[in-house]
């Protein structure tokens, strides 16, 4: 494999890894599979388009504003919708997220139409290619994506392991009833998990938008990242990172050596293989299968 291919794999890994954090956060804390995650990421990207329009001279402000809106969006989704499914059958909750995804897709097109947007252009930024090694280059936005993913993973790890809120979230994920009994308010923890989830999704969406624009089919990338999370074991961040690498490598290899059309289906082939061999993923536990 040439170094350029390796670089491409690294970039794609970063994309899937950043998006996967959302799946993992929500699943680990509240046992819900959020199949609207791709659409939420897309809305995050559209949010950047909106803030870019307002603050075209101040990109950092626009990015920050959009990211905060992303965080708030997740909390709102929980408080308004998902909260009512807490304690209900998991499958019903997942079906609601599917319905939410459809709703968001419709709303996005109604608000922003099917036109393609380029926030980078709005900022007047050319997204130059960056030379990372001899004969290897990636776009600046892609480089930012890789860096950001590493930062986010580091931040999440520190948060979950060493802060009080982080321990509470892990506790709530392991034993919700006991957590409630020990004084942890589940609704609060879940709302925060959703907020963090859409926050990272918005970050991913924004960087993708800066790299290649926004349009309504962007949500597919979110769905393709799901197998990466599953390979890792759905409730493990480390697993999601490794899973992303596996899926990204398989996808790039397939595009390069077999057939470019395979790009959308390879993640799901990996998914099927994992489900056939080790359904609970690399770092999950067998009991997970029975919980749902």
């Amino acid at each position: 494999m040439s170094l350029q291919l390796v670089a491409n794999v690294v970039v794609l890994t970063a994309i899937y890894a950043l998006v996967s954090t959302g799946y993992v956060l929500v699943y680990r804390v509240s046992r819900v599979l959020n199949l609207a995650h791709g659409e939420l990421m897309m809305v995050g990207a559209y949010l950047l388009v909106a803030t870019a329009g307002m603050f075209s001279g101040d990109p950092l402000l626009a990015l920050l504003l959009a990211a905060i809106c992303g965080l708030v969006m997740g909390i709102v989704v929980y408080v308004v919708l998902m909260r009512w499914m807490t304690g209900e059958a998991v499958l019903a909750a997942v079906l609601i997220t599917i319905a939410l995804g459809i709703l968001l897709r419709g709303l996005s097109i109604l608000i922003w139409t099917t036109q393609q947007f380029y926030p980078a252009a709005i900022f007047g930024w050319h997204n130059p290619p960056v030379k990372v090694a001899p004969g290897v280059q990636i776009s600046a936005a892609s480089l930012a994506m890789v860096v950001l993913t590493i930062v986010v993973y580091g931040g999440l790890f520190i948060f979950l392991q060493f802060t009080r809120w982080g321990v509470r979230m892990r506790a709530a994920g392991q034993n919700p009833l006991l957590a409630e009994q020990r004084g942890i308010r589940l609704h609060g923890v879940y709302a925060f998990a959703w907020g963090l989830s859409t926050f990272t999704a918005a970050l991913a969406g924004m960087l993708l938008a800066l790299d290649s624009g926004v349009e309504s089919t962007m949500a597919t990338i979110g769905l393709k990242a799901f197998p990466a999370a599953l390979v890792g074991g759905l409730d493990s961040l480390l697993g999601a990172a490794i899973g992303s690498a596996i899926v990204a490598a398989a996808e790039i290899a397939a595009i390069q050596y077999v057939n470019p059309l395979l790009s959308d289906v390879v993640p799901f082939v990996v998914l099927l293989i994992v489900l056939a061999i080790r359904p609970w993923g690399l770092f999950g536990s067998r009991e997970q299968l029975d919980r749902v």
Partner: protein
Amino acid sequence: MTEPLLAVDDLQVAYHRVAVALHGVSLRVMPQTIVALLGNNGAGKTTTLRAISGFIGLDDARVTAGSIRFAGQRIENRPPHANTARGVVLVPERDKVFPNLTVAENLTVAASSRARAAERRNLEALVFQFFPALADLRPRLAGLLSGGERQMLALGSAVLCNPELLLVDELSLGLAPVVVEDLTRRLSSIRRELSITILLVEQNAGVALTVADYGYLLENGRVVLEGDASQLRGRREIQEAYLGQVSGEERRSYRALRPAPERPHG
């Protein structure tokens, strides 16, 4: 006559709105006493505790009639965290710790809410005083602890929630007699040092009656006998039916020993 800390009146609990588990349970727990709730599997002891603690949603059960009053306030069908905030803390029978958190993290989680920092530190010091073994076990994952160690961690976590009423579900289940004896002694000292009240559910009546002041015997969702621990210990029925459990003797129904008027089953 002092007011009871916990007053349960005619409590009825139904599962899935159909299967009735408690048919009108009434009990009183006086402040700073240890009260034992005895009975076989399926007698309704755990259900009673769960109703009091708010843990009841676990099996889609609900209090359908009657009341539970804690310090004068009604607490039935309230969410668990609300009851914990009031000072009603449960040590459940199963899933009593967070298995993938360390002992230290388990204790951190428990100490989160109510008390102020100084109070918290006091409580933490007390917990390590009651359970010195926990200090060495701090970095260990709770899921890897032995049964006795896990029970100590569960009790310690409960104490850290600053309880006024501690509910313990099956203290002795699955533990060796020597461990159980040790735990009951510690439970007594906890009651003494913290001046708290304890409601203890136990299949093993012998264990419970050594440490309790008062006791209730439940059968098929009803209270069939109650009295001071010393009185209960002497009752032939308790001895024959329940004290033999540790050695695995065949359990007989209390009703089989004392013919009583037939009551309709729920």
